[in-house]
């Protein structure tokens, strides 16, 4: 065992990268849940985004196009969820599960020809001399653009929810859809857009795993990150900045256990690999006492006739 092999600066830098898929997916799901919809299909949308992004990036040679395709793929898959829950008023829990099961199958079908290929690499953002600052440079100024987009999105989501009319309407629909409907807001339309936004971000998160984190394609490679993102929204009490905090916490745990595996700690690999899931459970237990922050209409179907 050689713990000194773990460099804290590199650990923090890697933690931010490990956190980004969870962060993107959880931010998307936050908007969905704020609109009063519980979409348990995050894992399915992520894995679909992962393969869409991967395939398009390989075919076009451009990771950026890949990320765009991943967002489109995730959003398209989420349209199925829209169809089920908003048009045919199906149970949201069951529909979300269906989306995940379908997404896992679809992704492995799409990904058949892409096993073992290396995707084009996305370069880091060039901050010039900033990247050479000791400690701060490697941590803050040596990442790919998508990571910064993720953090920026949290800020945007926070500002939109807090300060804009759009955010207010979205929250109104989520808190009480009947009242929002009575005020003349198009509940179904607003929820559809929110779900698609969630799908697009989940897709981006998935593509971040297949294009930057790993980077290659294997079946089922998201390995529960979508579910952790769902847990994270509860953990964050539906607050964007706490999503960021939580994502970095989980990213840190994931990265730390990977580093400990690498350092050859006496704990078997399998038990280290369990840790992110176990810690998710522990955090859920600690925080589930307070449900007051949950949107009032979360998970309830809406039909105009009441």
């Amino acid at each position, binding site marked *: 065992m050689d713990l000194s092999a773990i460099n804290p600066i590199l650990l923090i830098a890697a933690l931010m990268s490990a956190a980004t898929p969870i962060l993107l997916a959880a931010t998307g799901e936050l908007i969905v849940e704020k609109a009063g919809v519980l979409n*348990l299909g995050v894992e399915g949308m992520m894995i679909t985004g992962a393969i869409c992004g991967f395939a398009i990036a390989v075919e076009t040679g451009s990771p950026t196009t890949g990320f765009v395709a991943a967002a489109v793929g995730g959003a398209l898959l989420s349209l*199925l969820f829209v*169809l*089920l829950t908003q*048009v*045919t*008023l*199906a*149970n949201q*829990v*069951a*529909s979300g*599960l*269906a989306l995940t*099961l*379908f*997404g*896992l*199958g*679809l992704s*492995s*079908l799409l990904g*058949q020809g892409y096993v073992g290929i290396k995707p084009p690499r996305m370069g880091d953002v060039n901050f010039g001399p900033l990247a050479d600052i000791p400690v701060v440079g490697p941590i803050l100024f040596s990442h790919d653009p998508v990571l910064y987009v993720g953090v920026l999105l949290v800020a945007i989501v926070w500002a939109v929810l807090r300060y804009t009319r759009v955010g207010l309407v979205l929250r109104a629909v989520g808190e009480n859809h009947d009242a929002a409907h009575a005020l*003349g807001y*198009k*509940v*179904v339309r607003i929820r559809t857009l929110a779900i698609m936004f969630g799908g697009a971000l989940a897709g981006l998160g998935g593509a971040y795993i297949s294009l930057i984190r790993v980077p290659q394609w294997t*079946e089922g490679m998201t*390995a*529960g990150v979508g*579910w*952790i993102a*769902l*847990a994270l929204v*509860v953990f964050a009490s539906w607050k964007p900045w706490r999503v960021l905090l939580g994502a970095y916490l989980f990213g840190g745990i994931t990265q730390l256990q990977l580093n400990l595996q690498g350092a050859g700690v006496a704990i*078997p690999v*399998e*038990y280290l*690999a*369990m840790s992110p*899931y*176990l810690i*998710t*459970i522990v955090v*859920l*237990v600690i925080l*589930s*006492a307070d*449900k007051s922050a949950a949107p009032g209409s979360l998970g309830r179907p809406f*039909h*105009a*006739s009441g």
Partner: protein
Amino acid sequence: MIRLEKRPQPSRAFSWAAPLLAVLATFFFGGLLFAALGKDPVQSILTIFWQPLFGEFSFFYRPQLLIKGAPLVLIAIGLSLGFRAGIWNIGAEGQYIMGALFGAGFGLAFYPADSALIFPGMVLAGAFGGWIWAMIPAILKVRFGTNEILVSLMLVYVAEQFLASMSLGLMKNPEGFGFPGSRNLQQYPSAHNAELIAGSGMHWGVVAAMIAVIFAYVLLTRHRLGFAVRVTGEAPRAAKFSGVNPGRLVLFCLGTSGMLAGLAGLFEVSGPAGQVTIDFNTGYGFTAIIVAFLGRLHPIGIVLAGLLMALTYIGGDIAQSQLGLPAAAIQVFQGMLLFFLLAFDLFTNYRLRTGRTEAA
């Protein structure tokens, strides 16, 4: 303009017609999918659904129907109890793995002893393994109000890691020349879940599934606990007034489904699979969710849905070897089935009316 109107009462006819419509729609869109993959759609569908039942080698495939159907039915029966009451155990895959590990572990501990008590002991251990794994989300939900969906699902990943650790470590066959995986239980008579009638596919898991179906049917229609399950799902407030204890119901539903999933795992690992290996679990715990819904959460429906889903597995294997249809296509096909079912269910609770448009 067409609009939806809520039915005063769910339509019974549509509640049974929806699965049939869903199957038909899945045939159609599945056919399109197979065509898109460059396969003849009609031939693919026939290969999957006709050949195992009535084809040339059906004598070989029909027993498979029981072997693949039993774990699906066993798990789905347990899940359906919870789903009816709005208690969502989606971690059956984890409970399945833990049941297999506890059961196989019990059997392997006595290797190579010869006793008629070993197999019953394994069954109890398997049921206990699944039960205890499901008790984690159950107790957390009752005690702390933790979301059982997320906890039960997280425990699937934990169980998978645990399985990896066991098949590479503690349970590894000491005479296995270093290969991962346990001793083969099929070659250990006291622990082998053998066919009860040779060539029929009938093993103890099938018997257990039948008992579970009857048990669930009686429970739901004749027993107070079944009434509590149904009323909690349909009218939670009324359930409270009629004296249903929600905490006890959570423990019962999750515990029962965990126990049945654990049993399914044990029967699989000691019979058809034979060995604890890193990937002996084939996702029955997740497919059973589709089975439960497709069977309308009703014991008889679940049997039919379980057989249908078993057919897609068997037919899928045939289509894979004969037509080169990718295994993932079958997974998509199964997912589609759940999609269409949920969509067609609209007409169980609503009907279409033509008339004035309303703001929606």
